[in-house]
């Protein structure tokens, strides 16, 4: 049984009073809070088990190398890859996408080729491709979404053609909550001979992922959003594609043989993990993903789906509130504005009421502008949120309105 009130007890920070009020944390979309098991695990590793990985010929190093590689196997299970060699540890999803842009994009894209992305991308899945475009002379195409944030198949299909070499699309928009039909899109991309990358940063927090079923070629997500530590992210890549990619950064731990004349590089994933990695963070991430899998991804999805319905209804009852992103297929991301109150002003009041949410363009400036705004407020759900959190949000918004 998924008992959210029991689960909340495992997140110590949720018990902290904020400005004397209950901690109403609605910014998981930016970064999630950490359960005690992740905190304990990392503390234990630092206290009792720490050494560098892949180096030492001594017990501690051997043990921690096993732990680090075990974390990779947990990620393998979490997104169901064929092999753990298809999992590259990075700093975050941003680095994962930059890695593909730098290593795959620069090598395989040229003038005349096209990259296709959506209007709903986070800067992390937009700017790396602009850079690759400027460096290689390829073209960046952007397919439109509907005014309510819905995905429109025809807009996507219209721009997908022989010239398309890569489709890079978010699995779930960080501003609109829209869930994109990744499996169908990947299939369509493959039909024209393009590779398919998905930014699963938001999606992975709420849904079961099966990369073999989705058949995507690359998938990126961040550890800090999936209840793990910051400083660790994941890039999944199909092995035969990773194998053809040159290194992203060079240094220790990513080589096969080095002389002053020539260096040969290690096989993936080591080829892409230059230098000492984020060892304890990777182990912490493994713990966080196990935590999610033990709760059951389907249970998490079901809990948040019910809460999404509740929040949508409650927010729609607030006079003067406009919800941005109301696609039928959407997850627990609520962007909104009040007609009479600036998001910054509202955030000042919400903060005093213990409500944490984010305002601004959410690292998706062109998207927020496209929806017709300079700045929007955004509340996002995590597995620990309750209907009471939504009630407190609504009450705080109503209070904010009395000030202006």
């Amino acid at each position, binding site marked *: 049984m998924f008992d959210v009130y029991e689960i909340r007890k495992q997140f110590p920070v949720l018990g902290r009073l904020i400005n004397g009020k209950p901690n109403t944390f609605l910014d998981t979309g930016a970064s999630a809070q950490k359960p005690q098991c992740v905190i304990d695990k990392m503390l234990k590793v630092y206290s009792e088990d720490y050494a560098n990985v892949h180096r030492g010929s001594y017990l501690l190093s051997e043990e921690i190398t096993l732990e680090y590689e075990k974390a990779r196997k947990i990620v393998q299970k979490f997104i169901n890859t064929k092999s753990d060699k298809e999992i590259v540890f990075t700093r975050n999803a941003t680095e994962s996408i930059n890695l593909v842009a730098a290593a795959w994009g620069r090598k395989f894209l040229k003038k005349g080729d096209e990259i296709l992305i959506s209007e709903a991308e986070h800067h992390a899945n937009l700017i790396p491709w602009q850079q690759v475009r400027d460096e290689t002379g390829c073209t960046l195409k952007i397919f439109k979404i509907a005014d309510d944030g819905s995905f429109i198949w025809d807009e996507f299909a219209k721009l997908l053609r022989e010239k398309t070499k890569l489709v890079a699309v978010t699995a779930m928009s960080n501003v609109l909550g829209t869930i994109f039909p990744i499996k169908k899109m990947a299939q369509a991309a493959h039909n024209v001979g393009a590779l398919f990358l998905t930014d699963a940063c938001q999606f992975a927090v709420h849904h079961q992922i099966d990369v073999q079923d989705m058949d995507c070629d690359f998938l990126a997500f961040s550890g800090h959003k999936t209840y793990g530590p910051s400083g660790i992210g994941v890039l999944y890549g199909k092995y035969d594609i990773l194998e053809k990619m040159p290194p992203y950064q060079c240094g220790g731990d990513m080589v096969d043989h080095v002389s002053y004349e020539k260096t040969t590089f290690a096989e993936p994933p080591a080829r892409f993990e230059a230098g000492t990695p984020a060892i304890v963070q990777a182990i912490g991430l493994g713990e966080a993903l196990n935590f999610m899998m033990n709760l059951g991804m389907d249970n998490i999805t079901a809990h948040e789906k019910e809460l999404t319905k509740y929040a949508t209804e409650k927010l729609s009852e607030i006079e003067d509130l406009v919800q941005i992103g109301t696609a039928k297929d959407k997850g627990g991301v609520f962007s909104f504005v009040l007609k009479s109150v*600036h998001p*910054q*002003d509202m955030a000042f009041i919400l903060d005093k009421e213990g409500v944490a949410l984010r*305002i601004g363009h959410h690292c998706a400036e062109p998207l927020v502008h496209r929806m017709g705004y300079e700045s929007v407020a955004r509340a996002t759900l995590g597995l620990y949120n309750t209907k009471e959190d939504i009630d407190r949000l609504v009450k705080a918004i109503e209070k904010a309105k009395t*000030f202006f």
Partner: protein
Amino acid sequence: MTIEDLIENFELLEDWEDKYRYLIDLGAKLEHMPEKYYTEDWKVRGCQSQVWLVPKKEDNKFYFVGDSDAAIVKGIIYIVLTIFNGLTAEEIKNVDINNIFTRLGLNEHLSPSRRNGLSSMTEKILYYANIL
């Protein structure tokens, strides 16, 4: 009104709600700037709302006008202008903004480390004081 007057007024206000309401009132007193100033050139970066700040130097003293699209931020601008208007570059450099906001009783609500525009505004004022 001088900054000392403002400090006295804020002292009379007990809770954050009254303080915020007073800030909003102060912001409403800001005069609308000439339209030509509402451009990218005069924008202060690093704020979560739009903030414009325009400097003028007369007899070695600085005078600023400013505006924002957020009401509480306008109140912050009002205070910032009250602090800095009429000061020389040297005097501007010596202003202890943290201390003033503590005396206003606003530091715990609107500390310069938060992205409410206060630190970006004061940095911009220091920048103008250095180059003009």
